[in-house]
């Protein structure tokens, strides 16, 4: 059963006054980021989006999360068009985005507060999640007192606290060092395998994509649409050992094969166009 259906998504950003892009000889004040983006995501699936910079992966997450509206096309979540942020989605960002004035515990409570959950229940849920991430003794710490890896664990716990059906993860481990990154990938897989949450995960790392995903969706160079979807046929439950298997390398090769041409195309494109923020 598909929990998310994205149909014919188009998203165009207006640039600031005076800014322009050169799109294959055509000068314009706007930039098309998604063009004919179709994607169906199954319930309880771990779907990873890979694609060159600027291909609109994060924009797609914003559309699913209701933080942005498509120029045309629709995203259906549980059969209903997404128009605003809903309780059904949780969002994890690359920059952690923890509220620095709140402790780890209180950050995790945040989403539950606006849903009117009472204090006792909020603390209970938050403590369970902290313990799930091995952070029970850090509940009184402020974000500045936590390492990057711990902060991102708290951020994931915060997103999971409201029990979302869909977890949106926008390059969540990109700012972490290689070892912490692998540890967090393992933890994420372990925790996800114990829930029935659907995950949409954006990354630039092919290894990360192959290790985590049920399916890897390769997005084209801007304007983005789905180029190819690759089933990752690695058995679950997975642990760190799978990374050194032959099957892993084979899957990695498949994903890179689909991605290579798009990355090259994007590099050509960036030579022509000024940088704009996704």
């Amino acid at each position, binding site marked *: 059963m598909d929990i998310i259906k994205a149909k014919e998504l188009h998203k165009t950003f207006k640039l600031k006054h005076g800014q322009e892009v050169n799109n294959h000889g055509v000068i314009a004040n706007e930039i098309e980021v998604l063009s004919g983006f179709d994607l169906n995501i199954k319930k309880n699936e771990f779907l990873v989006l890979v694609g060159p910079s600027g291909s609109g992966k994060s924009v797609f997450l914003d559309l699913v*999360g209701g*933080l942005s509206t498509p120029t045309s096309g629709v995203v259906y979540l549980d059969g209903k068009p997404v128009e*605003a*942020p*809903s*309780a059904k*989605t*949780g*969002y994890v*960002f690359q*920059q952690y*985005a923890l*509220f*620095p*004035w*709140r402790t780890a515990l209180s950050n995790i409570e*945040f*989403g539950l*507060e*606006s*849903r009117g959950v009472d204090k006792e229940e909020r603390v209970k849920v938050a403590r369970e999640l902290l313990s799930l*991430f*091995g*952070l*029970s*003794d*850090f509940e*009184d710490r*402020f*974000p*500045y*007192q936590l390492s990057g890896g711990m902060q991102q664990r708290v951020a994931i716990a915060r997103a999971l606290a*409201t029990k979302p059906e869909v977890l*949106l993860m926008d390059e969540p481990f990109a700012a972490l060092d290689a070892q912490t990154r692998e*540890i967090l990938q*393992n*933890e994420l897989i*372990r925790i996800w395998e114990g829930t029935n949450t659907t995950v949409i995960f954006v990354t630039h790392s092919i290894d990360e994509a192959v290790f985590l995903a049920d399916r890897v969706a390769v997005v084209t160079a801007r304007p983005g649409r789905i180029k190819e979807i690759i089933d990752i046929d690695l058995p679950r*439950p997975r*642990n*760190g*050992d799978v990374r050194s298997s032959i099957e892993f390398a084979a899957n990695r090769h498949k994903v890179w094969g689909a991605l290579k041409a798009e990355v090259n195309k994007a590099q050509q494109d960036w030579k022509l166009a000024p940088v704009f923020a996704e």
Partner: protein
Amino acid sequence: MSEELVAPSEIALKIRSWNFDSYVKQVEHLLKGLNNWAQGIPLVLVFFAIWEALPRLGIIDPLFLPTFSTTIKTLFDLTVTGKLLLHVVVSLQRVSLGFGLAIIVAVPLGFLMGWYNKFERYTDLLVQSLRNISTFALLPIFLLVLGLGEPSKIAIIFYGASWQLLMNTMSGVKSVDPIYIKAAKSMGLSDWDLFRKVILPASIPSIIIGARLGAKIALMVVIAAEMIGAKSGLGFFIQNAQFNFMVPEMYAGILALALLGLLINYLLVWFEKKTTSWKGEAGNSIFG
């Protein structure tokens, strides 16, 4: 399930003594702050010594500059007889009222200007024009319009203290990291909750700095206002002592003013530290 996952809780065990550690750290930090503060004392002592020497050596006529020891003695006498206290209390009262009013008015206005671009466009020109006039230049106008009583003094303090509060609140709101807003919105926060739980706490550090600057201005303005038309207050006391050629009293009043300023500054720094402890030690010091 893999082995690495056990590691974090083991680390956690080692940090069980966190509360005690943090207490020790606080004491250490306080001592360090005190030590830093104490390093400033010698220069102040040198200053007092020169002050003591100049009139004693006859370089400056003691009639115009009484020795430091005379001034301190006068300050002591004025304090124990309670003559000075009344004036200090009156000045502080005026400052609290004017400054309190400034917080009530300027902070909400700053939020509106920072959040609603339209509101800022409508108000910016007027605000910029007014805030660049010296408050002291406007003193006569306040006296003419509101008379010699309390209202004119409280109004001018309010006016003087408001601008820093307004500007800092506005810039605080504008500089809230958009990622916090995005994170909050992704959790489905209402606009009111977004303000209450994200914009407000994120702006607090900037507002507090505005409050510190505003309070300093309030203290300057109250003295000036009391010098022009008042029958009480520290400004009046200093001015009155000068007119009646009570020179040691005048210097004692100025010394009291310096002490008061110092005290208020430390109080505000302490308050700033208290309310923004979540920012960590960097850039924060008790005696900052």
